[in-house]
């Protein structure tokens, strides 16, 4: 069930009404209802996926209780924690990475004959997300950061909460679990803001990401015959696509949660307005980067060690980040690329830690800031070639294609001028509005617009744009494949 589908448009109001009007008076029943609704939502893809998420939830739940029980016996607690991590990562590894490593092994040592090694497994939607979410709970219990819960329904609801189940944000138990432990009170302002976020997320996904995808897909599939200018435009629009798609999903997830009185963490903070790569990674897919920081980078020593070790730690984290996205050498290359950039900034001390937002308190950035933002985005675009390409060879040929200047720098032969105009207009609106609200909680905060008719007019324009470009929900969110 995609967020941008008619099925979800029917599902959500029904769940909303039942949540508040039927189950609103009893916390236990409300949590149970959230669990049932989440399992219906997830099972809509494939009911078999439910067995896996239930297993993950069950193991992590009992691990939390056992870790707490054996808190005084460190050896046992460590063993239980390790077993739970191995089990969950093992499941993730089996479904997501086994075939990749088997095929790579076969290519290296068996002359490419991998038929007998490969398994026919369907990758469960969202497995990377909920596995990490469940793991963060048991690790935090083990570290003593949170108390384990003994309410199995509450825990299962935490792992499977449908707005963020299939594509994040990857929540922390310290944030989300307590919200299932206390009574939710309907807040009209929060719910209204939730609807705004849903609308904004749909705009970014349907009007920007899906339209960019039409161009990008053609460019990447015909790259051998296209001029360099078109290839450059293709990768630029891919960065627009991936941002509109993923941040749009996060907005819808966070907005939906607000309708239910639940506050999820922010996942994107205008990353394309970052001034360097370090800032970019503090603003992009925040739930994943902070997860890797807290559970991988810091335990390895972080940056509080020698430069060599700090560089090593960065490489490990970025390669894991790449692998998390998918079982492919292109994702590993993507991780190596950003690890290299991080390593360079450690070596030369270039990674300034910005605490403020670009052009804070001002309408326009300075020339220096414009230059920094442009440079950061160029670096991001180059990395995105790996992310989008089907294999390393294609990525390499794409880079070489940048130097082919036979032909026009345009969408000619790929899209019509009116389609290109629509793409750029939508992107301009998206980035323009997010620029204006870059210091606010999200792109469509309306506290500056006092007139209700004007606010409603803005909502209507966005809504009509979404309806014009909407295509029956057949375009899935890119991050569902992770």
């Amino acid at each position, binding site marked *: 069930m995609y967020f941008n589908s008619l099925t979800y448009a029917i599902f959500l109001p029904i769940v909303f009404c039942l949540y508040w009007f039927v189950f609103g008076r009893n916390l236990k029943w409300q949590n149970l209802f959230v669990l049932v609704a989440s399992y219906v939502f997830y099972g809509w893809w494939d009911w078999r996926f439910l067995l896996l998420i239930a297993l993950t939830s069950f193991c992590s739940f009992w691990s939390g209780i056992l870790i707490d029980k054996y808190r005084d016996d460190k050896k046992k607690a460590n063993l239980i924690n390790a077993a739970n991590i191995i089990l969950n990562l093992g499941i993730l590894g089996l479904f997501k990475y086994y075939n990749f490593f088997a095929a790579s092994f076969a290519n290296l040592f068996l002359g490419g004959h991998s038929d007998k090694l490969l398994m026919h497994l369907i990758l469960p939607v969202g497995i990377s997300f909920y596995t990490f979410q469940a793991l963060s709970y048991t690790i935090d219990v083990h570290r003593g950061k949170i108390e384990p819960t003994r309410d199995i329904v509450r825990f299962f609801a935490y792992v499977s909460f449908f707005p963020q189940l299939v594509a994040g944000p990857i929540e922390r138990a310290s944030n989300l679990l307590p919200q299932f432990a206390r009574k939710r009170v309907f807040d009209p302002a929060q719910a209204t803001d939730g609807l705004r976020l849903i609308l904004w997320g749909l705009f970014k996904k349907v009007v920007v990401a899906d339209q960019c995808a039409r161009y990008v897909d053609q460019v990447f599939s015909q790259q051998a015959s296209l001029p360099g200018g078109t290839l450059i435009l293709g990768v630029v629009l891919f960065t627009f696509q991936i941002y509109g798609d993923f941040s749009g999903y996060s907005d819808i997830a966070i907005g939906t949660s607000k309708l239910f009185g639940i506050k999820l963490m922010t996942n994107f903070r205008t990353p394309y307005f970052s001034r360097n790569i370090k800032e970019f990674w503090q603003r992009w897919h925040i739930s994943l980067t902070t997860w890797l920081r807290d559970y991988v980078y810091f335990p390895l020593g972080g940056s509080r060690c020698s430069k060599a070790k700090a560089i090593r730690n960065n490489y490990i984290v970025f390669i894991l980040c790449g692998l998390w996205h998918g079982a492919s050498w292109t994702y590993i290359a993507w991780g190596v690329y950003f690890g290299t950039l991080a390593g360079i900034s450690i070596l030369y001390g270039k990674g300034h830690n910005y605490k403020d937002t670009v052009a804070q308190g001002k309408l326009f950035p300075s020339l220096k800031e414009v230059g920094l933002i442009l440079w950061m985005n160029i670096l991001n675009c180059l990395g995105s070639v790996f992310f989008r390409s089907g294999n390393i060879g294609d990525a390499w040929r794409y880079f070489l294609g940048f130097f082919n200047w036979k032909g026009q720098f345009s969408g000619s032969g790929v899209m019509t001028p*009116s389609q290109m105009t629509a793409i750029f207009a939508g992107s301009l609106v998206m980035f323009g509005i997010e620029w204006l609200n870059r210091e606010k909680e999200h792109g469509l905060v309306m506290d500056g617009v006092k007139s209700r008719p004007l606010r409603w007019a803005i*909502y209507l324009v966005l809504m009509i744009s979404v*309806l014009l470009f909407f*295509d*029956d929900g057949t375009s899935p969110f890119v991050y569902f494949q992770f």
Partner: protein
Amino acid sequence: MRGFLFKLLIFSLVALATLVAGDFALSRWMRKAHHPNNEIWDEVMEGKVDADVVAFGSSRANTSFYPPVVDSVLKTSSWNLGVLGHHFQAEDLRYKMFRLHNRKPRIVVQFVDPLFFSSEKAFDRVQFLPWFWDKEYRKSFRESFGTAFFFKNAFPFVRYHSFLPWEVASDERRTERGFHTYESDIKNPFKPVFNESFIKDENLPDQFITFILSLKKDGIKVVMVHPPEYKTIVYNKGQREALRSVMDSIANLTRTPYIDYSRMGMCSDSTNFIDIWHLNLKGAIEFSDSLSNDIQRILSIGQE
């Protein structure tokens, strides 16, 4: 909660009113837009089709039946009412609207092809939407396409989803009494690996038979035609024979002449075609001449 729901309700009503107004404006604009699909529908709905010989079919009819040539051979007036991308259900709708707003023709040339009996509905569905404000049209649409598809395309403005008005506005093609040609955007339009299948919704052949018999009852002569196809078109095993068999049996049952031009001499020459399915203007002129002479011979007309 009550306040929130009340405001949501008011906003929804305002939004609905906006969508209805937007739909009305967009539909009105679309009806007069110079896009081949809209032009033909406008001619049908405004009663501009003054013709003795009318062609129905899909885009294969649109690009094959050239009225000026047909007129000169049959010494009468003709019109091309092919429906881009569509099959019998859409042609049935067009015929109903054509008869409602225009005079009865003497001859109907019905183009058939392997997709004629498929019930695929979604191709370029926007061409049908601007006339939903017409009550008779809505009724006929529902009869031709079914209730489910009707409701899927009835909600104001939302029904235009995934349609970009400026793409219609920027289309510079024009029709000549329904005939129009186009530039192929397929990279290799004559690539000989395309596998054509004869797709059949079980109910449609009977509906088609009923359609032909009703035309004949109305005093209209009918000719079934399989248009030329470029020689490299490849059918899946047995599919060409299945198509021929079904059309032959319908032709025999309804006593309708059925002429298969899919392998005529011009089909070997790529300069007659846009792609493996569609003739270009040169091909359409040559084909229309052959077709008109065959109609003249079979139906003994235009010889007075």
